[in-house]
């Protein structure tokens, strides 16, 4: 972005979401710095899968799967009384490439297990900075290949497999979709990119507007991308699989769902990604929720905007999966 461009204040938060943020932000400064990665991992309790599953008619199985330099874990979720041959969802979790685990976001994907009788596979990719790019996206891609290879055993139709994730998980889902396209990998039925983290360059208007407030602000975004890319960040060495916003050609992708909020760093890179898909005649659905901050529906699932945002994803999945 040229230095002459004037940066206006970000659009205001939705009233209800703003109030939630006012309460919750007391526990967390808006900017996540590198020193905070370790405390964030150990100090903030991650969702406990037993709690998330509590009462739901869903079976959980952990599998160790091979990757280039070792093994990683995936979790497989199947509805009790599952009917084989339905849809599958391969999930890549969020957390800025630096935190979170395969249960991050489970409260939403477990609903999909129930709603669609979908088999959900959530991958525990290894995190930056200990495992910088390309490990996270390669782990996810390996997880996708394993999932498709085991479709029969897991009980879903590989022709009805959707990849999806939120935030960094949305970026990884986009990167894996590109990789599958370029390497002749599995044909995906859809790509569900929930406020995806796509662009290491941090130069859009929205990346400047959300600075020092909100959730996952400009500085946090620097922390995440620096951890993932190190010295290669901002250079031509960054692959389109790590930072899908750098892809010039978005043709040949599966139908893609993208959502984001007006008051988040990722707004403009997400909107631009949808535009690039349309530019080459691709299929994309874009929702930009007014007054949301990054991850608004996870922090305030009961808020009106959150309910509508999550319902829009479910409606898209219904159309894509024919379920």
């Amino acid at each position, binding site marked *: 972005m040229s230095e002459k461009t004037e940066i206006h204040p970000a659009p205001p938060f939705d009233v209800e979401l703003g109030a939630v943020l006012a*309460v919750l932000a007391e*526990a967390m400064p808006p900017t996540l710095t590198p020193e905070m990665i370790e405390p964030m991992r150990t100090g903030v309790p991650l969702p406990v899968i037993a709690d998330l599953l509590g009462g739901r008619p869903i079976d959980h199985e952990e599998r160790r799967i091979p990757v280039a330099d070792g093994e990683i874990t995936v979790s497989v979720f199947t509805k009790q009384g599952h009917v084989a041959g339905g849809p599958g969802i391969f999930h890549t979790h969020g957390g800025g490439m630096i935190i979170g685990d395969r249960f991050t976001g489970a409260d939403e994907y477990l609903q999909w297990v129930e709603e669609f009788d979908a088999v959900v596979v959530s991958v525990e990719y290894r995190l930056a900075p200990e495992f910088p790019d390309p490990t996270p996206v390669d782990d996810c891609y390996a997880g996708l290949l394993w999932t498709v290879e085991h479709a029969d055993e897991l009980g879903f139709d590989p022709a009805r497999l959707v990849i999806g994730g939120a935030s960094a998980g949305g970026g990884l889902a986009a990167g894996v979709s590109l990789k599958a396209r370029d390497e002749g990998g599995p044909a995906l039925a859809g790509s569900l990119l929930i406020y995806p983290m796509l662009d290491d360059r941090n130069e859009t208007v929205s990346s400047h507007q959300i600075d020092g407030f909100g*959730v996952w602000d400009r500085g946090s975004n620097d922390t995440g991308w620096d951890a993932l890319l190190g010295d290669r960040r901002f250079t031509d060495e960054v692959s389109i699989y790590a930072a899908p916003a750098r892809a010039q050609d978005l043709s040949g992708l599966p139908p893609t769902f993208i959502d984001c909020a007006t008051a988040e760093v990722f707004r403009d890179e997400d909107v631009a990604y949808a535009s690039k898909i349309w530019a080459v005649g691709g299929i994309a659905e874009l929702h930009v929720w007014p007054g949301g901050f990054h*991850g608004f529906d996870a*922090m305030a699932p009961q808020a009106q905007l959150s309910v509508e945002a999550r319902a829009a994803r479910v409606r898209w999945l219904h159309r894509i999966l024919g379920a």
Partner: protein
Amino acid sequence: MQELVGRLTALDPEASESLKVISYFDALVDGHASIEVLLRGAAVLSGQAAGCDAHGVVLRVAANGVLQRAQDPGAPDPAQAPWPSHPVAHDGRVWIERSGPAHANDEMILERLALAVAIVLDRTPAGAARRALETVIDAGTPPTERLEAARRLSLDAGTSYRVVAAPAAGEVGPTAPVTPSVVVETPFGRVRVGVAQDHAGSVGPVGIGLARRPEALDESWASALVALRLTDEREPVVRADDLGILLALADAADGDSADDPDLTALRTLLGAHPAALPLLESLAVSESVRAVALDLGFHHSTVQAHLAYYGDRLGFDLRTPRGRVRLSLALSVLRLTTRRFD
């Protein structure tokens, strides 16, 4: 990302988190949130459904944040249920559908919810009109402010209006009301007040004030309240126009009439003979003893005998014109001092 800052969920049942509750509702009020959003906040924070019934707004939000237009089938009537609740704006209330022991933050959630709902109601056009009406009839407010409030109510400065008063649970209509009604606290209980240009055909109880220009509607209100206090089953609609000097008497009665001998005697008589009241009331409004007898279905000699006895007790002769005037005034003052609207 919820892994960064958590998620808004029901508060700890044991630990008080007043600050969180206050800042949450303050932010909603600052942002002009709707009542639905306020209720959703209360429902999410308390982990229970929350509801509101105020100024005709009846809403309920379930614990999962979903707006419900109606109660669950078989659920208790909110007005009867033993749920914790808090009054809102005179005649309304908000509640949390908590059965069993209250949680540490219930009271604070209800208090802040009620405060926020009252502010939201105040901001609506109807709320603004109610506030203006309160101002227009308030004798303690400077005339310039009352005139300004009258303008906000679109009252014409050159036209006379009447304040109409009814018990809070009642109706000020049917009228051609030019304003919404508002419930105000009076020393005699909660009274619903409206302003009308003309008034006819109300079933009552209702008191209709003197016709006054907007700047003097405080006087119309004072007279309407006296008229309302003088209503009874026999005369449910009382017009201040018909009261004449009784209005002045009411002023005096509101001063110090407790030790008036006639009033004291009447109280003593009614204490010993409650059945005397219908007969005395009938006498006060009837042409003759014969009319009283017809009114009550007694033989007129029975009425004569009672009047003689009651007259002895009261200390004045009820069969003389002056005695009937004294009776009528004493009955009016008694009603003025005892009538309550709760």
